[in-house]
């Protein structure tokens, strides 16, 4: 079981040097096993910091994060991160990148070969296994990064604005692919984004954060509507025009605009 429990977590930056800055204050959140949540909020609300604390790349100044009942003290392959900058190893081929995390677990060569074949077929990228990242488009690079994380077989997938650096069309295709991937192969997913549409389309619940200090403003349930309206059976463009979708999108958007008011 890979549920995420964020237990009264606070984060202060710049303690013991410079002016301390309260980035996150008293956040409580429970993400169920195999649930997909997205986190939206104005810039500076600490959504990336929150994800980095789950990843073990940052440490809470108060409270604690537990994953699968175990306290998070550092990064580990049970919580693979997909980064906005893709973060593929430039000197490794597609094959070597995809199997990077598998090698940490001591997977055999046969298992690694099978995984490379599996993910490249799934991503319609057959024949690219010996290419280097710089020979691929941005969308393909991020597919490889997602495959690398999936192949590591983590209980939790953490995604930090993974489609933020992609053009609009590629982004839409990737969103659709990610939904298919998480349907076929469910994981606990924490997805950070600043796109309201993306947040609503991908997640079972949308966590809306507020800033100064960073905290949870509201959590909106999407899963119930998605199942009732059978979103996963429709193409993404049609889903995004359905009244059930636009209603939820409007709800999240109003919550965001409410707190961004003075900035726009």
């Amino acid at each position, binding site marked *: 079981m890979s549920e995420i429990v964020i237990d009264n977590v606070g984060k202060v930056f710049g303690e013991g040097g410079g002016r301390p800055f309260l980035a996150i204050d008293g956040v409580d959140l429970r993400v169920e096993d195999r649930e997909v949540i997205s986190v939206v909020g104005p810039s500076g609300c600490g959504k990336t910091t929150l994800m980095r604390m789950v990843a*073990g790349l940052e440490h809470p100044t108060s409270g604690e994060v537990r994953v699968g009942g175990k306290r998070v003290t550092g*990064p580990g392959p049970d*919580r693979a991160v997909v980064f906005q*900058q893709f*973060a593929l190893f430039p*000197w490794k081929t597609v094959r070597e990148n995809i199997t990077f995390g598998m090698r940490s*677990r001591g997977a055999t060569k046969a298992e690694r070969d099978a995984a490379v074949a599996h993910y490249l077929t799934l991503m319609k990228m057959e024949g690219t296994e010996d290419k280097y*990242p710089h020979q691929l488009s941005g969308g393909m690079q991020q597919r490889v990064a997602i495959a690398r994380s999936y192949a590591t077989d983590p209980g939790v997938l953490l995604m930090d604005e993974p489609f933020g650096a992609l053009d609009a069309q590629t982004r839409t295709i990737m969103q659709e692919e990610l939904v298919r991937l998480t349907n076929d192969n469910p994981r606990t997913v924490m997805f950070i984004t600043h796109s309201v549409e993306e947040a609503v389309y991908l997640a079972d619940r949308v966590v809306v954060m507020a800033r100064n200090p960073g905290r949870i403003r509201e959590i909106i349930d999407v899963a119930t509507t998605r199942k009732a309206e059978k979103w996963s059976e429709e193409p993404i463009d049609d889903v995004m025009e359905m009244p059930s979708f636009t209603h939820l999108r409007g709800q999240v958007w109003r919550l965001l605009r409410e707190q961004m008011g003075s900035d726009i």
Partner: protein
Amino acid sequence: MSERLPLWAWSAAGLILFFGLWQGAVSSGAVSSFVLPSPLEVLERMWKLMNQPFAGALLHEHLLSSFGRFMGGFLLAAVIGVPLGLMMGRFRLLEDIVTPLFEGYRYVAPLAWVPFAALWFGTGIGGPIMVIFTGAFAPCVINAYRGARLVDSYLIEAAQTHGASEFRVAREVLLPGALPSIVAGLRIAAGLGWQSLIGAELIVVSSGIGFVMVQGQSNLSPSTVMTAMAVIGLTGLLIDIGLRQIESRVRAKWEGR
């Protein structure tokens, strides 16, 4: 003019002019050949030293002996210096511990270590290797450190969140990421190491190009000293050309990634 002649032609013209003036100055009797041996005398002497043992061995045997010491010290500096530099780039604490010592050490000329090198490791192979090591060590550390600092932090984080141990982070992320900088550092290290070696050989040892120089001096043979200098210069140049090849290959391979 400058647009019509290729660059190498200018280099060649410079060399010919230099050696021509030198030869002319000695041949005309303006400068005594005892003060400055002419290029032709040096070539003649070089040929002789390659065929008749001097100071116990032929010229190329002395060169081989010097080169062996050089490789020993240079490789030792790379094998210790590069990992140390990478780790300093990775761990702030190690950087803070090592930096003050290191900054002090690197301004002490390699030759200043000669007495202790001889005292601790003897005048055979150990002492000279230590002197070369002290010359070649700093650029290995500094360039590996700088290279490691330039590796994008998210690549290190990507490795960590996919289960990589610190050893794998060092070997598969820091080392390849810092490689262009490391290779540039090795080139500098080789140059400094080769210079330090000759210095060490002037003082200790009983073979090698530096030793040939000392013997030439005490035999009042300026052409022998000059021959040794030419061999040192040429060998240094060849080492540099070899490493430059490797450097440009690494750069070409890393380009655009």
